[in-house]
């Protein structure tokens, strides 16, 4: 391929080549940088978005990282999706669905005329092929590092080693697929909106050996499908992943069944450093990026960019582990911690605009949120009194906080730690700080219950209470070690019962009751705050709808100028 000649004057180029010094390069390159920026394709133009990390792979079933989903979400769709700007489920590849009274059989009526990017039909048999593929994972494919979302939501596999939520799938005709479950669950069908359960082309998966994952040495190897042939039904198709240049390219799918994407092409550039992402936006190298530093929001806005603050769909909590410190098994001590922390001040001083004090373990937009839970206002005197009553006036706590990392719910771990530690010291608690990098021991230690108290949180996957409190407290031996208290098993059983209740009204009642008990009787951790993570795009980007699930879709976006 021979490229067309450059637009800048050849005289400058010759001089630059002869002189070979930086100044000449600078002068000549000005023209070149300008010309690149003016290019655009299609009526909606081209969008380049800055991603914070490399995606693990492009087969969402084997993924659990946001950077993978950010890409595959544009390429693939599920039976159900999430309404733009909310965490609420809406039809996507299934136009409608109904379930039997016992909640164990779900029939999906499928959208007709939909084709995968490889030209094959999306129909009932494709749906069942996907479910069967997930269920029949073997070897490395059954590992939590690969099939996290299946294991977390469906449990076991076809080999029967662990019970599975999934029983079978049948497709009486191309427009219908019925999924049979082994029990009712509140998570169905919402969980099918997770990117991990996107519908992928059975033909492409077979051709590129999609299930050929293997544990080798210290890690896993992925098949060709997951590396370079992801095939879905979505508004964009996969073009390439250029690892040398750290860029993933997608193009518009002109055969899309719905409203076609406005953008002609969509590129994700991997830029791990946050400051570099900001400067790239300022210099025009990218059109937007995620996870801007809270301290930069004002200057980004002042420079004319659009900072979209998402609705908070997360929780930050002060985790408590009952395993090693017997005093923490006393409810009064845990209540003292709750009274000691000044959450109003924390939200005001340490969290971005739009953050809210959390009264329970998920935001009020999720079903089963109870308006009348027990409150723990900032009250140092009451905290001291509770500690004295529990015989824990000399309480010493090992307080873990993560270094070198920010999370959407925890924008400034050190600042948050400092504020909380000061509150705890004020009521007479001796605080021993332990700080470790996230992957450098922090998560390991917290999971192995080496902390007494710790900072952590969670961003919801979909809009059900089970996704929050079921995940946190459903296993008594989890990082909270609720097994240390007599109610640990009871709480897990209550969570299971609520999740298995098919009647929505009854189920919400059960969850409200659990939330009341969680705050008044159990208090396995102290809910702190809900923080809205921000996303930023340039002033020439239009139509981006911020998602509380951080699940933005780019099909409706246009870039002008």
């Amino acid at each position, binding site marked *: 391929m021979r490229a067309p000649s450059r637009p800048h004057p050849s005289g400058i180029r010759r001089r630059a080549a002869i002189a070979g010094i930086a100044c000449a390069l600078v002068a000549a390159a000005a023209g070149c940088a300008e010309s690149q920026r003016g290019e655009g394709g299609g009526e909606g133009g081209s969008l380049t978005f800055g991603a914070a990390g490399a995606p693990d792979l492009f087969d969402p079933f084997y993924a659990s990282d946001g950077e993978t989903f950010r890409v595959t979400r544009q390429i693939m769709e599920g039976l159900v999706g999430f309404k733009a700007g909310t965490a609420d489920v809406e039809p996507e590849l299934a136009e409608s669905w109904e379930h039997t009274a016992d909640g164990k059989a779900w029939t999906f009526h499928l959208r007709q005329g939909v084709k995968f990017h490889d030209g094959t039909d999306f129909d009932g048999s494709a749906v069942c092929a996907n479910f069967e593929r997930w269920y029949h994972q073997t070897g490395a494919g059954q590992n939590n590092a690969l099939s996290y979302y299946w294991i977390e939501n469906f449990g076991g596999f076809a080999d029967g080693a662990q019970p599975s939520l999934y029983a079978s799938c049948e497709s009486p005709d191309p427009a219908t697929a019925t999924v049979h479950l082994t029990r009712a669950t509140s998570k169905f069908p919402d969980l099918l909106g997770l990117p991990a359960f996107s519908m992928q082309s059975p033909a492409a998966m077979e051709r590129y050996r999609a299930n050929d994952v293997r544990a080798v040495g210290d890690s896993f190897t992925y098949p060709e499908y997951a590396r370079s042939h992801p095939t879905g039904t979505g508004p964009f198709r996969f073009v390439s992943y250029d690892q040398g*240049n750290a860029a993933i390219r997608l193009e518009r799918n002109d055969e899309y069944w719905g409203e076609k994407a406005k953008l002609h092409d969509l590129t994700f550039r991997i830029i791990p450093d946050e400051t570099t992402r900001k400067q790239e936006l300022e210099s025009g190298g990218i059109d937007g990026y995620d996870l801007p530093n809270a301290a930069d929001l004002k200057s980004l806005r002042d420079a004319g960019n659009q900072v979209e603050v998402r609705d908070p769909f997360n929780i930050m909590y002060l985790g408590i582990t009952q395993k090693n410190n017997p005093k923490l098994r006393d409810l009064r001590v845990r209540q003292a911690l709750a009274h000691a922390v000044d959450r109003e001040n924390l939200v005001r001083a340490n969290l971005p605009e739009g953050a809210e004090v959390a009264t329970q373990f998920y935001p009020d937009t999720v079903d089963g949120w109870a308006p009348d839970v027990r409150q723990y206002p900032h009250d140092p005197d009451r905290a001291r009194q509770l500690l004295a009553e529990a015989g824990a006036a000399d309480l010493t706590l090992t307080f873990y906080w993560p270094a070198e990392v920010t999370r959407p719910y925890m924008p400034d771990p050190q600042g948050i730690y400092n504020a909380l530690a000061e509150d705890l010291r004020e009521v007479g608690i001796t605080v021993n700080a332990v700080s470790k990098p996230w992957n450098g021991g922090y998560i390991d230690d917290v999971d192995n219950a080496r902390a007494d108290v710790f900072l952590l949180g969670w961003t919801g996957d979909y809009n059900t209470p089970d996704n929050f409190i079921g995940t946190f407290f459903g296993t008594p031996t989890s990082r909270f070690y609720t097994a240390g208290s007599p109610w640990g098993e009871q709480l897990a059983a209550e969570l299971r019962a609520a999740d298995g209740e098919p009647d929505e009204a009854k189920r919400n009642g059960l969850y409200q009751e659990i939330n009341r008990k969680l705050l008044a009787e159990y208090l396995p951790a102290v809910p702190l705050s809900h923080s809205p993570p921000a996303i930023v795009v340039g002033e020439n980007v239009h139509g981006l709808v911020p998602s509380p699930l951080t699940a933005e879709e780019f099909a409706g976006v246009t870039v002008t100028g």
Partner: protein
Amino acid sequence: MLRYTIRRLAQLVLVAFVLSVLLFGWLRLLPGGPVSALLGDRATPESRAALEAQLGLDQPIWSQYGKFLLRALSGDFGTSTGVERGSPAVQVFLTRFPATIELSLLALLLAVAVGIPLGYLAARRRGGWWDNLSITWSLVGVAVPVFFLAFLLKFVFAVQLGWLPASGRQDVGLDATRVTGFYVLDGLLTREWDAAWNALVHLALPAVALSTIPFAVIFRITRAAVLDVLDEDYVRTARAKGLSGAVIRRRHVLHNALLPVVTTVGLQTGALLAGAVLTERVFNIAGIGQAVAVGFERKDFPVLQVVILAAAMVYVLVNLLVDLSYALIDPRLRAR
């Protein structure tokens, strides 16, 4: 000369072995491990234990090393757990190595092309305004951290003025053909002049930033070496014999002053690789420096092992080349 070369190459193998043992052990002594990176935020103690067992991370470290060594001898250095999860570590290295070499070579070329002539000129005009200016410049060059300079250059020339790209190796939309992974070279080989130029433009700011310290060091060593030689008796003799200035400069001054300069250039190559870590971060270049940074963050042992071992080998090889080039420049060494 041949026996000397063979002996040095044998030493290289020994160095590689010892280094691999130390590196393997050291990485595993660090807190945390690849399991957290593989399982993500939502790991449970059970899933952690299961994965450790599956990957053999629960085995004694010597047994893990033995398996690593056996695989490594057949060219398999493991699979990346974090930098490019799922890719062979060797492939991660091979994809990223050209970026770092391209950047380091250009920086070294800049440093040599500017440092040696300026050092020579400064020595010949000792004490003059040009000498003073150059010395000040080189002092600033050594004192200013690469990270800061890279940041400053980017802010001025990319963000504020918009003259040069702020990051990356090439414009993403170019669709250039890849042959060797060296983007400038690829552009030249495939006659895609646009692509070659575009890659060069992307390299301009990072290379200038990275060249500052080697420039300063090369400049000062050249200046000092030339000053030394100018005071030598044989130069004075040459002058007394009525040789022309040009001949004295070429045959006597430059030739003899070059030896310490070559040593310095060799040593600076190692420093360049270290500086590349920071420069690649600022300019978001997917090179081995960035791979090391992300590798440590995500505890990607396979990639860290390959990259650090290879970087060390390059360093040792460069030293070997410097020693061999001594012999070429200085006939007295050749005779031994």
